């Protein structure tokens, strides 16, 4: 067997782009707003609604302020990257397509133990749920595989298949690294050395953790949450579901920062999440109505 150098972080993304592009997916760019997961991208949330076919793949930078560890934990980040694929309606060979993508990035299923382990996905802030699995590679969760049943409180007609790859975990696996920060990001040439994930992002992790846990102005954030809520409602009144939804995303992120800052009590938590869910649901409802789709 010839020894091939494992994919760099960027080649992992490029390989997936190439693979899913060949399957007929539109390769999109990340949504240019702070969000907790690729599912928040309008290409997933809004496009999962309605009858029109939709096939897309994209990287989504995902922010989880409470998961920040000042760049000191080798397995946790406050900001990371998800690779998201959405296929609507879910094709009959979705599992085969997915396994083909693992093959493309160099995972041999007769050398590594690939398993589909029950994991039903639910996003309380999006009013969404689906059935599926977390996909294990030698015991490590590398992908969330979901058949969306509801989005924004509406039945998905038809059902979309959604794949969410954790890029850092997958790269750690492929490159056999024990720390995210040691991941090789790009490909060295004779006169240009490779950089690591840590070279690029560790300082961001340090500063953003300090900001989210210690510095963020909570009065400003509470105020911003209120304003985003009001703005969302105003957009809905003007029958503008996309800008309304953007305000819902904004409110969701502000809520996440407030959580990290530790100023939302357990009692209040559910009520804040409920408010974000109402905004997201309202936006989805307006999107359905604007397109003339029946619930």
């Amino acid at each position: 067997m010839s020894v091939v150098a494992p994919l760099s972080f960027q080649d992992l993304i490029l390989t997936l782009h190439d693979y899913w592009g060949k399957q007929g997916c539109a390769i999109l760019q990340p949504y240019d707003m702070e969000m907790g997961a690729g599912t928040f991208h309008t290409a997933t949330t809004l496009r999962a609604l309605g009858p029109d076919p939709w096939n897309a793949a994209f990287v989504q930078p995902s922010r989880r302020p409470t998961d920040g560890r000042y760049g000191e934990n080798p397995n946790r980040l406050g900001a990371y990257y998800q690779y998201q694929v959405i296929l609507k309606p879910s094709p009959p060979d979705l599992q085969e397509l997915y396994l083909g993508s693992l093959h493309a990035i160099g995972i041999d299923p007769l050398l590594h133990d690939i398993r589909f382990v029950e994991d039903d996905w639910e996003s309380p802030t999006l009013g969404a749920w689906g059935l599926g699995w977390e996909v294990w590679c030698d015991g490590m969760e590398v992908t969330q595989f979901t058949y969306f049943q509801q989005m924004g409180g509406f039945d998905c007609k038809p059902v979309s298949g959604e794949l969410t790859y954790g890029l850092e975990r997958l790269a750690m696996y492929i490159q056999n690294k024990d720390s995210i920060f040691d991941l090789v990001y790009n490909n060295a040439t004779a006169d240009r050395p490779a950089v690591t994930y840590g070279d690029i992002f560790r300082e961001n992790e340090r500063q953003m953790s300090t900001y989210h846990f210690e510095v963020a102005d909570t009065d400003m954030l509470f105020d911003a949450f209120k304003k985003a809520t009001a703005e969302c409602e105003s957009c809905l009144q003007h029958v503008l579901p996309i800008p309304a939804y953007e305000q819902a995303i904004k409110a969701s992120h502000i809520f996440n920062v407030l959580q990290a800052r530790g100023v939302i009590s357990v009692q209040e938590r559910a009520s804040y999440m409920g408010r974000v869910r109402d905004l997201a649901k309202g936006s989805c409802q307006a999107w359905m109505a604007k397109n003339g789709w029946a619930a």
Partner: protein
Amino acid sequence: MTDFLLELRSEEIPARMQVKAKEDLARLFNDALAKAGLAAVSVETFATPRRLALIATGLPMATDAVSEETKGPKLGAPPQAMEGFLRKTGLTQDQLIERDGVYFAVVEKAGRQTADVLAEAIPAIIRAFPWPKSQRWGAASVSTESLRWVRPLQGIVALLGDDDVPCEIEGICSGAATMGHRFHHSGTIHIANAANYAAKLRDAHVLVHFSERCRIIRDGAKAAAEAAGLRLVEDEGLVVENAGLTEWPVPMLGRFDAGFLDVPQEVIQLTARVNQKYFVCHDKASKLANAFVCTANIDAHDNGAAIVAGNEKVLAARLSDAKFFWEQDLKVALDDQAKKLAQITFHEKLGSVADKVDRVAKLVRWLVEEGIVKGASADDAERAARLCKADLVTGMVGEFPELQGIMGGYYARAQGESDAVADAIRDHYKPVGQGDDVPMAPVTVAVSLADKLDTLAQFFAAGMPPTGSKDPFALRRAAIGFLSLLLQNDLRCSLKGMLVATGAGASFAILEEFLIDRLKVQQREAGVRHDLIDAMFSLGGEDDLVRLLARVKALQAYISTAEGANLLAAYKRAANILKGSDPVSPALDTARDALMADPANIALLSALDIAEPQAKKALAAEQFEDAMAALATLRAPIDRFFEEVMVNDEDAAKRAFRLGLLARFRDAVTQVADFSKIEG
């Protein structure tokens, strides 16, 4: 006679659902057969992650022909009745037969081909299948009425003998083709008939017998541990779960850094078991070893080296997270953690967890100071109560909620609390349901009892008892725990007194009844009769549950003897005669001398004179067997009385006297138990 094979192939079925799915498939299939008048000699079911299958043997090729007779109108009935009957049956009048003045329609139903019955039954079984959760998928899901299955259904194999049973559901057509192992076998496999199903799949790296996969995992995991000089911590739940995750299970041993063994072993075991489905191992000294056994689903071509390395890495990452939480939590005193409980709602009507802790702490002190829980220091007990919920806000319990209590025990010991206090914090959730260990250490008993008592009293006082199958606050479990603690520790006290001490509210009638009901459920397993519990409880005044149960047991022992059964029969007879009449004892005294002549009367009366005070004395001394023995002396005289004496004598004075005598007998028995509640 022939055999039938059905395989429903789908994307991966959750492991936890497979055993139940096998049962459901057998049941639905047998029902469908029975409805058609068919039966199989045997039905065997199979489940793997990707298929649910069934083999029925000894099926007839067709159902028997039957002639069905339907009763129609009488001769000479109005013409409308006849018209209606003919319309319903689709016959003409000359096709009817007449018997005893009534028309009958006789329809000869030819036997049906079993294949036809099955072709109809398969889609019906699929549509009716009771998965705990099911989904829609694919293009058909534009309609919410589209087929649902646990995960997308991909193929159906249906073979009767060597022949296809053709059927179709939402574009999936049955046939003889299936798939082998996802990675070890590519392309389709053709199954000839039920007899070669298992063998064909075995050749394609699929073991369809759930029990065989379980055995391979059970034995293989044990052997892997032994080969490393270790002993597997057996776990049948994990065996079954891994069997549900694999079609070709291969257990393998991996290692982790011994440095992680500083973390409490429950944490290691939990993260290995719950998150990763790994077994853990003990070393020769029965200490947790730095090894685990994972179960792969392939025979890897490097013999699993890469798989073991990968799993080791995942576990190391999880353990380093756990170690981080452990070390962080140790930096904060439990007293400081406890302050944060004010932020956690216990229930919106019942305040925060801090409020609950405060109530429990007071109740604990009361239980000890009243002498209900003996052998505990009130200060220790209160200290344990004040800290018992503090671990809820630690990082570790946030990550592993199942470790509540256990972690609190570790953190308490680490900050220098006494063993009594740390043990109480660790064990105060116990017993969790029937069969769990019941705490016996006094401080633990006090905290555990107070915690459950508070929960019960508060929820009932706030009007939130369990209803029907709904018990969102697990009050039934709390009640069983409460009762087990009382009974096993022989805690003597008035139930009412304890309920009042909770300070939860005024009336506890519903809660008392609920607890008695739970007592019946709990004691059923021990063979204690529920009607005897009622017989004691309905006396009123007996709310010391330990004493109540002792009385019930003495009663049960007596009632189950021939003598006891006779006495019960005599009681019922007496109560029956007395029903409606309300005899007055004075008649007894005044008429006594005149009416004493009857020897049966004399015998009963003198027996009562002795037995009544004896029983009373024995009850006061809690000598319940003696009380029963006193009652037993009444058996012969009451039998004789019934044999020789006519109660309803024409002479009013005699009748009143005899009724009075019977009433006295009834009351003597009733001071021991309310025999009217006893069944049989």
